[in-house]
């Protein structure tokens, strides 16, 4: 698959995004944000600030939830993914997602990896096998599971399952990888492995990460955005938000005064 990269720096441009759930839950208010290609963008802030909602807008996963109002645009390589004519199935193959809890599908390790490709119509055995090895290698899991590809995915440890979820997304060769607190349930060693994989992957992918702590945000960010109660408070390159925040609210949160 040939992946087209955005001409220039930005892969995703969010423009005035407002979103309200029908039960009045967490929403977004006029969020504008640009996500650079081939970098790790971190969206952080206290719970209920709209981070997950924003993330789930990037692959239209909010379609599964009752949304009453949605305004604004999300440009992915120049086309608006919120446009009703967008092919959401194709979009989700371009924009993959790893969730907070590792949810492996009730099948073997191999089947978890080939699932998305098979849905897309890939039947060629050799291509599927190649995708299994490539994606597992990229997620730093190949050496651990190469002999257990036909074992149930649930037989893996929690950390391995989460890396399998990452590999499952990589197998589809997406352009963007969304990660919603991917290490929140993992031990420090597994967390380190996932973080290292992400650092390796950013050369080829656009990565958007909702970290599970401010420390992780600071460790991983090439760009950081602080969100509070559905609003984007402050955006900065690299570690700027963590060392020289401009907004008082960012400063308070980063220094641990709330949240």
């Amino acid at each position: 698959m040939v992946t087209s990269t955005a001409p220039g720096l930005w892969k995703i441009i969010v423009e005035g995004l407002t979103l309200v759930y029908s039960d009045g839950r967490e929403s977004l208010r006029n969020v504008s944000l640009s996500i650079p290609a081939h970098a790790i963008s971190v969206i952080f802030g206290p719970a209920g600030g709209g981070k997950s909602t924003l993330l789930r807008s990037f692959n239209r996963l909010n379609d599964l939830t009752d949304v009453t109002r949605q305004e604004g645009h999300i440009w992915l390589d120049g086309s608006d993914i919120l446009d009703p004519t967008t092919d959401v199935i194709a979009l989700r193959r371009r924009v993959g997602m790893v969730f907070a809890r590792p949810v492996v599908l009730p099948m073997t390790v191999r089947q978890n990896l080939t699932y998305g490709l098979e849905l897309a119509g890939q039947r060629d055995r050799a291509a599927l096998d190649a995708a299994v090895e490539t994606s597992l290698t990229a997620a730093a899991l190949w050496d651990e599971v190469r002999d257990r590809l036909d074992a149930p995915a649930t037989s893996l440890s929690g950390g391995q399952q989460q890396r399998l979820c990452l590999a499952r997304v990589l197998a589809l060769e997406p352009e963007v990888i969304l990660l919603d607190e991917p290490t929140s349930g993992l031990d420090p060693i597994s967390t380190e492995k996932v973080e290292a994989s992400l650092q390796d992957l950013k050369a080829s992918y656009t990565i958007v990460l909702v970290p599970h702590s401010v420390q992780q945000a600071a460790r991983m960010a090439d760009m950081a955005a602080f969100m509070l109660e559905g609003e984007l408070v402050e955006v900065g390159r690299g570690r700027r938000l963590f060392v020289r925040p401009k907004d008082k609210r960012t400063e308070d949160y980063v220094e641990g005064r709330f949240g």
Partner: protein
Amino acid sequence: MQLESAQIANVRKARRKWIQIIGFGVLGAATALTVLPILAIVVDIFSKGWSAFSVTFLTSFPSDGMRAGGILPALVGTLWLTLGTAVAAVPVGLGAAIYLAEYAPDNAWTRTIRVAIINLAGIPSVVYGLFGLGLFVLFLRFGTSILAGSLTLAIMTLPVIISTAEEALRAVPHSFRVVSVSLGGTRWQTVRRIVLPQALPGILTGVILGLERAAGETAPILFTAAAFFLPRLPTSPLDATMALPYHLFVISTQVPGMPLRIQYGTAAVLLLFVLGMNLIATAIRSRARARRQW
């Protein structure tokens, strides 16, 4: 003072112990009361009907005004009726369950449908029988036939199949659906490749339990399918047929001088048929539970 409080504590301890014993006793007795009748029925029927059991009993026609011979046409009739019920009820019931669990929005309309299904389960079986008589036998001119009986039994079985299948589908974790969709799956791909296989054991259990009830019912087939006596096996879906439950009713109440062991033997076969289905359902369920990965 101290002695007194120690004594009080001892008395309380003893009382607690007795309340425990009485409590367990009452609950145990209640459990025994539910098991005893089932055991009594099974033991009674098999002990009195055992002597009627033989290959010829299962493979020959009744003779001597049903006072001798076997139950072949009734057994075959019940098999056909059960099969016909399955063919009619499973696709419709499963389809409805998939729609309700996976596609239907939660609004007044679908809530009404659910209430209707629940109420359908509460309708007395004789009413289904009369409904089948009116619709299938008379209006659609199927006559008294396996077809009319199967369709009537199918309508009666539908609520059981729909409810259990919907429950089995809903028991599959929502996160599987989200993951499947996030990997580029359509709703139908998600249902077919993830949800349905995971729910299948539960669905099968419900189907078997529904069919089991259909196999043992008398009232719905009374006016729609069942014949008092037929000297031949049915050859088409439009033939009337003998059936085990109705045959049992007939030889128990309508035939003077009926030998007891044939009555009990027939009851035993019907019981075995139904308990056998139950056993299969239980086996499927426990096998699936052991294999389940969530």
